[in-house]
């Protein structure tokens, strides 16, 4: 081993440039920047929405205007000018209404290919139906037929509003109300698209549902709205993955995801988030302010959130579970990586209301370079939550002397029969571990990768197979140049 090789420090390996940074040139139908009631009416009209939804949006907007932008998160970013954002952007080609993949703009397909998401091949190989969201309008939905046979509804939410208005009206905004928080209110007012999933009673969704998000048009905030309803005794696994082209303008992304699980239903929601994190000086990058919440309404229902967060300049999200039904289960598995100037304030909330409800939280944070990362979690065990149980583990791994890792776990217990355990550790990659690996002839970079991999394993194990592979690769790629 050469002298220089030996002297390299782990932090040298975190400087890898963003791989998925390219802009696809597609004409977009974009509204001028600014937000007022006319913009909302315009969005609603474009989407041919019914009256009730327009009123719902307007109500949210009026409420939003009375709200204060929150600043309690442990992150720093310049003030956002909400009037400088364009609230609607749809790829032009959407107007032709592609019915199948063949009709999809070849440039879009090319973009996916560059990202290693061969849409067409997935149809055959992976057995995954992909509802690809390019900016704000869904352009391709596959495997519709097969899902239809099973009775599963999987479509863009704008389509669901037209086709299944009673379902949407019944559930929309019942998990995350319009006035829930600043960004949820904004989303409710201006959301342009997203996915809608309904799994009927007793149906096990025959395949994993997947949406790939991309933010593309310059200066366009992306406001996705996802609603998943798992009726009694059903099961669904939903994958969400994101990458974005490289660009200097900060982009706001304020999505809302609502999950409803009825009696004995199970929802598994997995996310790989790899949006543009900004350059090494903290210029550019996505602001990811997301509200994700699951309502375990039914008895014995079960929701599990798994997330791998490596992108975005600022991440601010807390996928949560309201454990209302007796014996319901909530799970949260997370790996978050912050490097360069990235900041993340993420965690979960587990609200125990029903009897014998259980929740598990495993959070792994890796901070490198100048990255700042916070775990913020709430475990609330209400008075009615007889026999509730929670286990929380949050570990942080620090790489380099300029990064930070913070933990803010809130624990509120109002029932003596509850059992709650919380553990957290923070440390750097052990010099002795590195030395051991290197003495066995493993290069420093590989050794660091191995250690990080081992650190994340508990979470990666929860990911569906294809995603686990992708996540592993993502970690390696992200840490290259940052570590060993």
């Amino acid at each position, binding site marked *: 081993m050469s002298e220089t090789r030996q002297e390299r420090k782990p932090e040298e390996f975190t400087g890898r440039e963003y791989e998925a940074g390219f802009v696809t040139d597609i004409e977009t139908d974009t509204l001028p920047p600014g937000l007022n009631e006319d913009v909302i009416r315009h969005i609603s009209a474009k989407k041919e929405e019914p009256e009730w939804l327009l009123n719902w949006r307007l109500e949210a907007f009026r409420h939003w205007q009375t709200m204060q932008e929150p600043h309690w998160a442990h992150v720093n970013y310049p003030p956002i000018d909400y009037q400088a954002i364009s609230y609607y952007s749809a790829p032009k080609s959407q107007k032709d209404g592609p019915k199948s993949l063949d009709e999809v703009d070849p440039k879009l397909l090319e973009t996916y290919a560059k990202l290693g998401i061969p849409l067409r091949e997935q149809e055959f190989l992976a057995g995954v139906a992909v509802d690809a969201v390019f900016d704000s309008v869904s352009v391709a939905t596959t495997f519709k037929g097969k899902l239809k046979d099973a009775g599963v509804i999987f479509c863009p939410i704008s389509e669901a509003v037209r086709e299944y208005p009673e379902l949407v009206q019944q559930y929309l905004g019942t998990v995350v109300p319009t006035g829930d928080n600043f960004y949820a209110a904004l989303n409710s007012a201006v959301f342009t698209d997203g996915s809608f999933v309904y799994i009927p009673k007793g149906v096990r969704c025959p395949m994993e549902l997947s949406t790939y998000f991309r933010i593309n048009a310059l200066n366009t905030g992306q406001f996705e709205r996802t609603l998943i309803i798992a009726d009694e005794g059903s099961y669904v696994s939903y994958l969400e993955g994101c990458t974005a082209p490289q660009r200097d303008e900060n982009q706001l992304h304020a999505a809302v995801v609502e999950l409803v699980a009825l009696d004995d239903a199970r929802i598994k929601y997995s996310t790989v988030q790899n949006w543009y994190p900004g350059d090494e000086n903290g210029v550019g990058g996505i602001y990811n302010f997301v509200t994700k919440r699951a309502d375990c309404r039914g008895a014995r229902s079960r929701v599990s959130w798994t997330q791998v967060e490596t992108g975005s300049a600022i991440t601010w999200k807390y996928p949560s579970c309201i454990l209302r039904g007796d014996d319901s289960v909530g799970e949260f598995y997370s790996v978050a990586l912050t490097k360069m100037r990235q900041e993340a304030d993420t965690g979960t909330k587990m609200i125990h209301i029903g009897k014998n409800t259980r929740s598990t939280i495993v959070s792994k944070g890796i901070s490198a370079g100048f990255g700042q990362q916070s775990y913020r979690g709430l475990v609330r065990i209400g*008075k009615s939550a007889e026999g509730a149980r929670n286990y929380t583990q949050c570990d942080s791994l620090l790489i380099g002397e300029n990064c930070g890792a913070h*933990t803010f776990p809130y*624990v*509120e*217990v109002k029932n*003596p029969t509850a*059992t709650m355990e919380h553990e957290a550790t*923070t*440390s*750097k990659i052990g010099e002795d571990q590195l030395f051991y690996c290197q003495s066995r002839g493993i290069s420093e970079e590989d050794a660091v990768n191995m250690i990080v991999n081992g650190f994340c394993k508990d979470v990666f194990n929860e990911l569906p197979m294809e995603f686990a592979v992708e996540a592993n690769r993502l970690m390696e790629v992200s840490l290259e140049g940052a570590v060993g």
Partner: protein
Amino acid sequence: MSGSLQTLRQQAWQAFEEKGLPTTRDEDWKYTDLSRIQTLLGEQWWQPAGTGAVAIDMVELPGLDAWRMVFNNGYFDPARSELPPGVTITSLASLMQDEPAKVVDLLAYQPDAPLSSGLTAANSALAADGACICIPANTRLDQPLYLLHLNSGGTAHLRTGIELGPHAELEVIEHFHGQHSEAGLTNSVTAIRLAAGARCTHYRLQLEAAKQCHSGRVEVSQKADSSYQLHAVELGGMLSRCDVISRLDERGASCELGGLFVATGRQHIDHHTRIEHNAPYCSSRESYRSVLDGRSHGVFNGKIVVAKGAIKTDSAQNNANLLLSPDAAVDTKPELEIYHDDVKCAHGVTVGQLDKNQLFYLKSRGIAEEEAKQLLTVAFADEQLARMNNHSIRRFIERAAFAKLPSITDLEGMLV
């Protein structure tokens, strides 16, 4: 009163008038509602009561041999005090009269200090008495120093300053006691400064009367290789809040914070601690336990901040809570804020009731369920008290703590 002291008092008073009492909208006061103080003591709750002229009935801490300073409602009572020779220990009131310049530093109000609130400002503005203790370099008192604060209701603002020279050693006991049935507020601030190599063991025993509110603040700043050990015990009062701030400012300093809450009825006990690792090679240990019965409410917030450059920090924190009644509640938040990678930090929290397996084990050995429960409760709390080296204090606290839990009958038999 000297000019600068007067300015300080005025500034603090202004700050207090601006700030008022913190509300539950304040993140640091989210779980503790101080409006109760106003309800109990009225709009003029801050108005100090009495002059300490009336001596309050003494309490005995059996077996404790110590130098003592006794305070009546916040005022020094020299007649019942006994001070060691050779070290400077005076009351704040007399120091204010003789050398007011010396007091300015001690009473200073820093609005930006962590966890400082309107109560701290009120203390700076209104504290009339307290203890000023100065132990010179390489000195060790032959006996502990016992600060007994007797209260009989009404409001008292106290300020205590403790300064240890290089390699000095001190064991200090702050004991807040009341047996009256009046409403009252104790607002105490204790500032401790440890020079290089100094060692301080601090017992803080809160056994106020049932309708007394208690607000405490302990601020410790530590130089190289100094060590500080806190044993906080919260048994009395209806609403008690204590902020403990420990700053490890120089290499090799260490601190150990321990706390035990035993609450019943409608008691509300809240401890916020903050340990700042500002220098390399410092270590901290923290362990808090609470036993909550009746409709009581326990709050614990432990924050550990590791500054950039504080390499080889070693920190561990633990908080365990035992809920004995369906109406008891606990809110706990162990926080870590870390800005350097070469550190080792861990924390853990548990909340629950008595372990069913342990209960079953004892029952299978022929011990009645009630007795088994008592045994396990005592064992849980005693694990915290076992860290106390002063046997007399430990015994005193054990008796006072377990007497609160009505089901415990044969206490003497259980104590080792």
